[in-house]
């Protein structure tokens, strides 16, 4: 007697769980991450526990360790930076400027720049710091 083997159907691989995981990761990275223009040079912000939460948005001025300047990820001269800020101010008088200065850069670059920004009419300037977790 010949026994008839039942035809085995290939196991059904459901991709619904994969979609769930990918969707979860997607939402996680969207919420946790912050998309900023990366400065063209290395900037290590000063460490401080006295900082407040940094809101998103605004324009970012980076100051490198040797005094190089960048505006929203592009290297720029000080005159060009002030012109660009003045243009942005006409469109948005409440412009928020974040200064991402290297902790080892000298104050002779930072403080005059803040004064000039203030003279241009910027009324919301913050210095970016990173919490010292030691």
């Amino acid at each position, binding site marked *: 007697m010949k026994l008839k083997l039942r035809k085995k159907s290939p196991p059904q691989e459901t*991709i*619904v769980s*994969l*979609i769930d995981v*990918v*969707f979860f*990761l*997607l939402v996680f*990275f*969207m919420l*946790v*991450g*912050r*998309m*900023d223009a*990366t400065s063209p040079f290395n900037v290590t*912000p*000063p*460490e*401080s*526990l*006295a*900082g*407040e*939460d*940094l*809101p998103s948005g605004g324009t970012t001025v980076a100051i490198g360790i040797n005094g190089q300047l960048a505006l929203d990820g592009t290297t720029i001269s000080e005159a060009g930076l002030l012109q660009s800020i003045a243009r942005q101010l006409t469109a948005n008088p409440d412009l928020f400027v*974040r*200064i991402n*200065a*290297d*902790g*080892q*850069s*000298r*104050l*002779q670059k*930072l*403080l*005059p720049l*803040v*004064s000039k*920004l*203030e*003279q241009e009419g*910027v*009324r*919301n*300037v*913050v*210095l*970016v*710091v*990173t*919490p010292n977790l030691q």
Partner: protein
Amino acid sequence: MRIARRNRNSALITLTPLVDVMLILLVFFMVTSTYLDLDMIPMVEKGDELNPTAPSTGTDGITTLLISINAAGEARFQGRTVTASALAEALRAQPDAQVLILPSGFANVQGLVEVIEAATVAGITNLRVVRLKAAQ
């Protein structure tokens, strides 16, 4: 006569393009986002009006304390070089005082931030950074 209807198959929606798009978005957000924990210290706020010619009355009874920062980034208070913790301790006794920070242009940003942190820890709320302008 009875006409037999063709058995209609329900339209099949494939999920593969959805998975592709989601994976692309996932990789995009993973690569372009930064995950640094960043805070801020306000330097110019609304209401801080520039008025260097305004006369100082000097009769408001507020004590003004001056902290200088030398080129090496060390804080000097009342004639002595002090550490950040000693400075915070000294300022804690006068939380209502106005604190002026006069840093050397050659000091680094970290030195200034440490002094601001010490003053904040001591409860100082009236804090200003001043700088000397070159004579014209």
